[in-house]
Every structure is written in structure tokens, then in C-alpha cells.
């Protein structure tokens, strides 16, 4: 499996199945968030960024990115300082100072994958808006003839270092979009 989930928000119907499935799979806190922009839904969950702002700011190096599991939390290192939640550009990471687990973020259903099952939100999404096969949406769009066939590389090998010029990763995000 790929270490991230692909979201095609144009397929999302806002049925909340992903949130419900996530709650059922993880008990309690939900790691997928259905955000609405102008009344249209976008499922948001940890993007498992390769140059993760959350991992970059973590003073204890409790968050690490690896190719098979995405951004992984090392629970024993975490001090619940909350910097990662501040750094996350998608706002999909939260820190619960008292609850368990301490950092609430999508772990791509680690437990389910260990049992050979697919992540709960992927399995349950009625319209395949969330998928763990990133080539599927591409194939679908090729079927409709809108994308030329190119070889997709799942991971880029040479990207700039996490800390950008403008004082951090988020500098790159700000300013680009005036809204």
C-alpha cells in the first residue's frame, strides 16, 4: 500500500461515512475531517507529507516520516507540546493533553493494515472519493480521456530541505493564495 490516501474531492458527496468509519475503527476521536468550503465537502486527513512540517517542528523528533508508513508518531518520545498541531498546514493533527492517544492523527489504520485490511475510510467511502490506490483516479480520468498516460512516480527523490527560505515550510504556503 502507498503511504498516503488520495482524495478526489469531486467525488465526495459529504455523506460522513469516512468520519463514522474512522470513529468506529479508532474508537472515539475521528481522524478524518469533512471540511466544507462554500458548502462543498472536502475530506481532510493527514497527507503524510514527505517534507512534513509537523516532523520538522517536533523538538523531540517524535514524528518521523518513512516510506511505508507515512508520518509515524513515536509515542514514547512525545511530550504533547502541541507544536505539530500548530505546524500542520492542513489542520488535521490535534493534540489531546489528557486523552489517549496523545497526538490524534491518521495513522492509515496501522492496526487494520497489520491484520491485512484496508483503512476504514477507504473501505467505506461509497463513491471512492478516498482511495489508497493513487493510480486509480488517474486510470479513471484516462478512461474519460482527460489525462495523457504518463508514468506516475509515487515519491520524489530530491526535494528541498524541510525548512524553506521564508522562515519555515509554511512560508511557502502563505502569500501564494491571497485568500
Amino acid at each position, binding site marked *: 500500500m502507498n503511504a498516503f490516501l488520495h482524495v478526489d474531492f469531486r*467525488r465526495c458527496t459529504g*455523506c*460522513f*461515512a469516512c468520519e463514522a468509519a474512522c470513529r468506529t475503527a479508532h474508537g472515539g476521536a475521528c481522524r478524518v475531517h469533512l471540511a466544507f468550503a462554500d458548502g462543498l465537502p472536502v475530506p481532510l486527513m493527514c497527507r503524510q507529507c514527505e517534507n512534513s512540517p509537523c516532523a520538522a517542528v517536533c523538538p523531540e523528533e517524535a514524528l518521523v516520516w518513512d516510506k511505508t508508513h507515512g508520518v509515524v508518531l513515536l509515542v514514547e518520545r512525545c511530550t504533547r507540546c502541541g507544536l505539530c498541531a500548530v505546524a500542520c498546514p492542513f489542520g488535521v493533527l490535534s493534540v489531546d493533553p489528557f486523552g489517549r492517544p496523545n497526538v490524534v492523527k491518521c495513522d492509515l489504520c496501522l492496526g487494520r493494515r497489520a491484520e491485512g485490511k484496508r483503512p*476504514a475510510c477507504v*473501505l467505506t467511502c*461509497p*463513491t*471512492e472519493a478516498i482511495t489508497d490506490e493513487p493510480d486509480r483516479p488517474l486510470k479513471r480520468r484516462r478512461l474519460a480521456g482527460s489525462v495523457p498516460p504518463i508514468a506516475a512516480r509515487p515519491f520524489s527523490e530530491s526535494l528541498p530541505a524541510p525548512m524553506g527560505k521564508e522562515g519555515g515550510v509554511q512560508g511557502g504556503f502563505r502569500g501564494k493564495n491571497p485568500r
Partner: protein
Amino acid sequence: MNAAPPVRTVCPYCAVGCHLDLLVENGRVAGLEHAVDSPVNGGRLCAKGHAALEIVNHPDRLQNPLQRSASGWVPVSWDRALDTAAERIRNILAAHGPEALAFLSTAKGSNEENYLVQKLARALGSNNVDHCARLCHASTLTGLGPMLGMGAATNALSDLRQSECLFFVGSNLAENHPVAFRWVQEAKDRGARILVADPRRTPTAWIADLHLPLKPGTDLALLAGMLHVIFQEGLQDDAFIARRTRGVEALRASVQHTDPLWAARITGVPARDIVRAARLYAKARRASLIYCMGVTQHVHGTETVRACADLALVTGHIGRAGSGLFPVRGQDNVQGACDMGALSGLLPGYRPVTDPDARTFFEKAWGLPSGTLAAAPGLTVTEMEQAAGHRVRGLIAIGENPVVTSPDSRRTRENLKRLDFLLVVDLFLTETAELAHLVLPAAAWAEKSGSRTNTDRRVQWSPKAVDPPGEARPDWKIITDLAHRLGWDSFFPYGSPEDILEEIRRVVPAYGGMSPRRLATAAEGIPWPCPDETHPGTPVLHEHRFATEDGLARLYPIEFLEAPELPDADFPYCLTTGRVTLHYNSGAMTRRSPSLASRSPYLFVEIHPEDAAREGLHHGDRVRVVTRRGALEAQAHITGSVSRGVVFAPFHFPETNALTQNVLDPSAKIPEFKTAACRLEKVKGAGP
């Protein structure tokens, strides 16, 4: 975990019939497994399906029979409760005759339970048995029955993926049947065109190639306009019309004057879009027409359903894989409840009560003395509620919540209070149960076995996984016990739902081949008609002949009629009602589910930004919506997804139906839920 293998049950919510695998530990449902290998849903579930367990293990579930007393509810034993019920029913029968007794059956019960309810009612000599199909798809039965011979979906829902054009009329499949929507998405991936006619830009309309935002209650004009274009441009399937239908001339004459410009004036949809829609639908090789309560819940519901069928017949889009007419049912077993004859005018298998042969057949089959079955059709749901406290003295409501679901609910409530005896069988103390004299605790879907029929006529068996909480009992057991106390023991000799299904097989030909064993092993269920054990079932209806006497479909002329209450100076907006994805019908289950109620906890109304500006309303304000019948207060959601002049309110909350009109379709007796003239008043003093 080394628990027992999961029990595969059928989801209790909508009519798609998804499989839910329940993990049982120590006699309790402990968890839910995604039914990955299910041919129906392949592991997919919507938010309601995920929340189904919250109903089974809900702390508010009724556990004992409750009797009303001067000091409130008193728990009583089953013996005492059933004796009381039988005595009160006997008193009413003796004093007022069987006509004074009415039964509300339930689309949430199994086929077996619905069959028993109508059998008991009819054995007592009353045709006053009906259920909530009257409020959602009664016009499908009265509309399609005479045209096609059968008022049911013609194809399996999975067939949608083979269509090249999907035309949704008044159906919000994406929100109400989310799991079925994946077939629509698959069709779109293959390049199918999606047309959606709906006053709101619903999630179904988000993926539409063409959205026709018509005024509520004008669907008939839109369809007439499309038919005009089809005949005008010669897009009709002449071979199909000649070979399989009758009455095309009358139809053609009736749509002679309904040109797109006329339709555009009435519906508010641009004429060119009506022309485009007609061309896209008629020219597609395989096209499906999906309609739902936006079509049926009107005074002219029957006519509008017939216009839908006219469109499908004239273009030949019926009776083939990928081409069909889909009335999408709302509840898990509303199709089955209709099949079982839980309708005031129809015996099991849609045989009319007015037909003497049908009555003789059932009297013989049930071993009743000749002349027991009443010849006149009984009262429908809305008529029962109007007559409650007057002509109707006793009402037995099983899994129904008319105080929330019926129109003009204030009057319904007053009438129910006047009854001599109101018996409610339900999972929870619903708004209706609070008015009852006696409340009996029922078993939820996971706590009883039974067969259920989905919207595409697939009959699936849902086995029992756990015991009901406390002393709750399954409905079939309650009805059987009640029948025994009423002295009908020899006519109700059932020890299990399987026994009842065996009897159903004998009297309903379409279910003839559905033995309990066969149903239990059929992974996807069996679509009726299935006359014998070797028959594989019928996924596509009307392939070679229609179910009418001569095998030909009837085309009906279209006559446009206006909605009974149009916006005027005092009530300038049109209130329309509908469903939202997180709630389900009367909300008795979903408003009690923490995970669903927390996401959608209160009633809201959707208002167009221009209307909101005129009324001085802002997003989140408290607003009072007033109609001639009542008022509700809700939070205002300002959104461009509703058309100008339209106010939308979900009907899952008890307040909504205080506003709707109790005006009935003359033949289907379905109330006009979808239009009501209203005005908006800002509630002062309540900040956002």
C-alpha cells in the same frame, strides 16, 4: 480476539439493503465488521449504517411493557399487557365494530411481521391496515400499477452503472442512499450523462452534467415539456411504442401544447435546458429514470409518476439491462411491506380487496369462514389519523411515529389523544408512544430473524444475532400472542419467522420460490418474482411483456395541474421538505444516535441569500417559518443551493410536519409534503 464468526445482517436503514457483519460477544453486539465480500455493498457503509449499533445498545431502549396510569408510566408484565390490549380491542370491536379499529404496520419490520399485521387486521374484519408507504411511494403503486402492471423498480440498482444517461427527478440518491450512489459514479466514470431535476442543488446534483432547478411541484410540467420535445423532434422509439404500448395518440395529443417555453414559464427552468435534457435522455442507448419523493409526495403524485413512466416508455428505456425506471424506496422494507399487503386496499401480492376471487382465495388459504374479509378498502394512514377519535376508536401503531411523519402534525396529535385505545409497539418512547395507553417494547433488526425486500425487489434474509434487551420481543411474536388472546390461535400457529415465510410462499406467487433455506444462503438475496424453488429470480422486469392483462403497457395522457397552495402576498415563499444524509425519516432512531445527532443536532432551514437579504436574515439566525397551519423555529442556513423563493426544511424533526398540508392525492391518498406557502420571520432577541 477469538470471537465467533460475525453474523451477516441487513442494515436497518435505507432500502439499499447493505450487509452489516455483527461481532457478537457474550450475547451482546460488540462491534461491526465491514462486509467486504458482500455483493451488495462490498464493505461500504454510510454514516447511518456505522451508527446502527448505537440503536441496538441504546440505553433508552424500552425493556418492559409500559401502561399509562394517573401517576405516569407503570411497567407491567407481558401477560398483563397483552390481556389488557386484547380486552380493549374486544371492547372496541363489540361497541363499534371492526371499522373502528385501525392498524399501522411498519416498513421497519420484516415481511413476515407485515404479513401477520395485515392478516390479523383482516381476520378481525377490518381493512384499516396501512403503513408509511402511504406517505412516500403510494403514488408509485397507483401510478405504475395500471400502466406497467406492477409498481416496483424495474431493474436492480447495480444496473445504474450500465446506463449512459441517468435522469434523477426529485431524488437525492447521494444523500439518502449513499452506498447506491457508487453505481452512479461508476456510470459517470464511463462517460454517462447525469441529469438532475431538483429545486435544490443537492449532492446528487453536484456531479450532474445538467441541473434543472425547477420550482417545487412543477415536475409534471417539466416532464410534459420533455415529452413534447421528444415527439416534436421524432426522438421517440416508434418500434417499441407500436409493439409494447397502447394509448400513444392520447399522450401525443396531451403534450401538443406543452412546449418548452410553456414549461420554462411554469418550472423556472430555461427552455433550452429542457430541450437538452429531453435530447440527452431520449438519444442515449441505455437510460435510467430515477425518481423519489420529489415526484410522489404531491397532490398530483400519481400523474407525475405516470409522466415519468410515459417518458421511459415512449423512449423505450425500460425492460433492458441498464434501462429502467427506478422508484427509490426510503426504508429497508417498504417494498416488502407493500408486497405483503399492509395496504388498506390491497391483499398480499397486490390483489385488490374489491376482487371477490382474491377474497375467496385468502379466506380459503387462511381457513377463515366465507365473508370474513371486508370488501371495501379500509382507511389509509392519513385517513386513520383524521378519523382517529371519531370513527376510529382504537389504533395499533407498530414501529410508526405519525406525530412526526404525518402532515399537519398538531391536528394528528389532537386526534390521537382522543382515541379510546392507542397501542404502540416500538424500540423507544417516541413522540407517538408518549400519547399511548400501552407501549410494548419491540426487538431491533439484529434481535430477530426475517426476510426484507429492498428497493430493487431483492429479498434478503437477516438472521438474529443477539437477544433483545430486557423483556423486549420481536413484532411477529407480539402479534401472534395478541392474536391468540383474541381467540384466533388456530389461525396463527407460528413458532418462528420461517413458519410465516412458508405461508407467504403459498399465498404470494412472486415469493413462491423463496424458501427460508434458500434465502439464508443467497448471498445477494433473490429478486421477486420468483415463482418456484428452481427459478433464479427476476432482476429485470418487463423484458418481454408487461404485467398487464394483455402484456402491453398503457400510456397515460398528461394534464398539468398546479400545486394546491401557491405562494401569495401573505405567504411569499414555498416551503419544501426533504431528507438530510445524517438523519432518517422520523428521526426516532437517528436523533437518538450520538454520533449522528452530534453532527446534525438541530433543525435548520435553508434559505437563498437574496431572500435572506430581503428578510434581514444572516447565517445562523433564529428564524420562524410560518404557514397557514403552524410555525416552527429553526436556525437559518443561508445557501445558494436552494432556488430563490424556496425554503427547505428537513422532515426528521417533529416541528417540520406541523407546517405541511394535509391535502391528499385523490387516488394514492399521499399528502402534499413538498409544497406549502410560508413566510419567514426573524426571531428577535435571539442572537446568532
